[in-house]
């Protein structure tokens, strides 16, 4: 397993031919290639443009939307998208940082309807709001639940 890790400048230089890097070169704020996986960070305002760009570049299958809470550092939430290409047989991970002063990001359900349940899950468990989502309600927890359980400041045993 190659242990090469490429940081932003190296990714832009050495992986310029990669379809995802080429498609996002004007949008990305950070890029990293580690453990054979490409991670591209884009600003949250540009997320819909970014997924449209990778879709046009041949990444046809939206696998997963999730979130990582980096509490207490800011921007706190990293909304993470895993997108697969059936023809290229490779994945790209898009990360959109969402700061706690404005917990909202645009929904990508117009590009991939598959994101519907995933965004609801992130909304339910992290409290990130997806603008333009057709049916943004809790999906795992009961409708009247208080709090968002997967946040780092939410105790594992729950509030008592």
């Amino acid at each position, binding site marked *: 397993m190659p242990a090469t890790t490429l940081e932003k400048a190296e990714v832009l230089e050495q992986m310029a031919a990669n379809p995802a890097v080429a498609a996002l070169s004007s949008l990305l704020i950070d890029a990293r290639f580690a453990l054979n996986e490409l*991670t591209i960070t884009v600003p949250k305002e540009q997320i819909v443009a970014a997924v449209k760009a990778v879709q046009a570049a041949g990444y046809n299958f939206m696998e*997963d939307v999730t979130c990582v809470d980096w509490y207490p550092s800011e921007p706190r939430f990293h909304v993470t998208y*895993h997108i697969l290409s059936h023809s290229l047989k490779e994945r790209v991970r898009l990360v959109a940082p969402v700061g706690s002063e404005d917990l909202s990001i645009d929904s990508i359900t117009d590009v991939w309807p598959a994101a519907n*349940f995933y965004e609801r899950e992130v909304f339910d468990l992290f409290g990130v709001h997806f603008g333009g989502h057709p049916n943004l*309600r809790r*999906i795992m927890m009961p409708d009247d639940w208080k709090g968002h359980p997967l946040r780092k400041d939410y105790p594992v045993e729950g509030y008592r």
Partner: protein
Amino acid sequence: MPTSVEDLINPGVDDVIADSKLHGNIDPAQDQTMVLNMGPQHPSTHGVLRVVLEVDGESVIALAPDIGYLHTGIEKTCEAKFYQQVVPLTDRIDYLCPMTNNLTYCLAVEKLLQLEIPERAQYLRVLLNELTRLNSHLVWLGTHAMDIGALTVFLYCFREREEILRIFEMVAGQRMMTSYFRIGGLSMEPPIDFYDRVRNFLKIMPEKIAEYENLLTGNPIWMGRLKNVGHLSAADAIALGVTGPPLRASGVDWDLRRDMPYSGYEKFKFDVPVSQVGDVWARYEVRMKEMYESVKIAIQALEGLPEGRITAVAPKIILPDREQMKTQMESLIHHFKIVTEGFAVPAGQVYQGVESPRGEMGYYVVSDGTAKPFRVHMRNPSFATLQALETMCKGRLLADVVAVIGSIDIVLGEIDR
């Protein structure tokens, strides 16, 4: 006196069907449709799935799955455990394919640790994963046939499944929640009579699959209930995130075992069954053919099983065996350290996708450099496939909903996690 439809139904139902008539005030005299609750306790929903249906007579106008009844917060629990303590949690996500869950999680963490897994362990993992696939498909076939009304097949399937569970019990000491895989390899060598037992099982299995097909394939009721029901086009399947047999039944030739191999799958020869039709029947056909392929892979893994270690050489990550631990000071220290403090995993993030019996199972593991995972997220196939339910059932008869739910083979444990 109630003035609108909303007053007559349970609270919450109006939320479940977005965009349906329930959001407007409808004159009851004009009201021709009915809202039906199917589940959460319904025999054909395979667990606790609640489907809210709007029906006009027998035909389905709108449909919305309501999930979360089995939510146990496994992802949250993972963050409070050491890396090795997460393995038993993964079994409980999808209780029909525990080994696949174990494998996906272990592969993800091994990627973070950059561990080299010995070939023998890889082969045994493949063998057990294919047995798991057979196990899961047998439960699918039995319950699917039972939903349609063919009760006999269920008993036949569970006869063979029992043998698989006994094999699992031999290697892991457990029938269902096996937890047999470890980060870095396997927990122990399988017992000596394991190999003969698996060999005998794989010898009889193709005949048994033919027997199930004999019971079902030519059966006019089975054909009538399955053919031309629940169509899903390839474009819809991709847009809705459908993976695994339902995706291949819609004509997309994609299998992670072949296209993005893991755990040594590139060394095995097998076909990927694909159908262009995209209905319930096509999913049935694809899964039946997949069972023959699983037997083929399992035989190759068993016959080509190399000698060697079953764990990687990493004393600070893998528990030493009992004898070493009792005789060597260093092993004792390692044992004590692993059990009490766990092992630190280098900071980073990985996503590992595996072809589970239901489709693409992916584990996204984020490490911050400590002994506990910072975040574990499971991408489960059933969760995405369930979104396609409305596309497949809309405009069809109510009875077809049962056939479609059977054909997408969902496990609520992995949907709700």
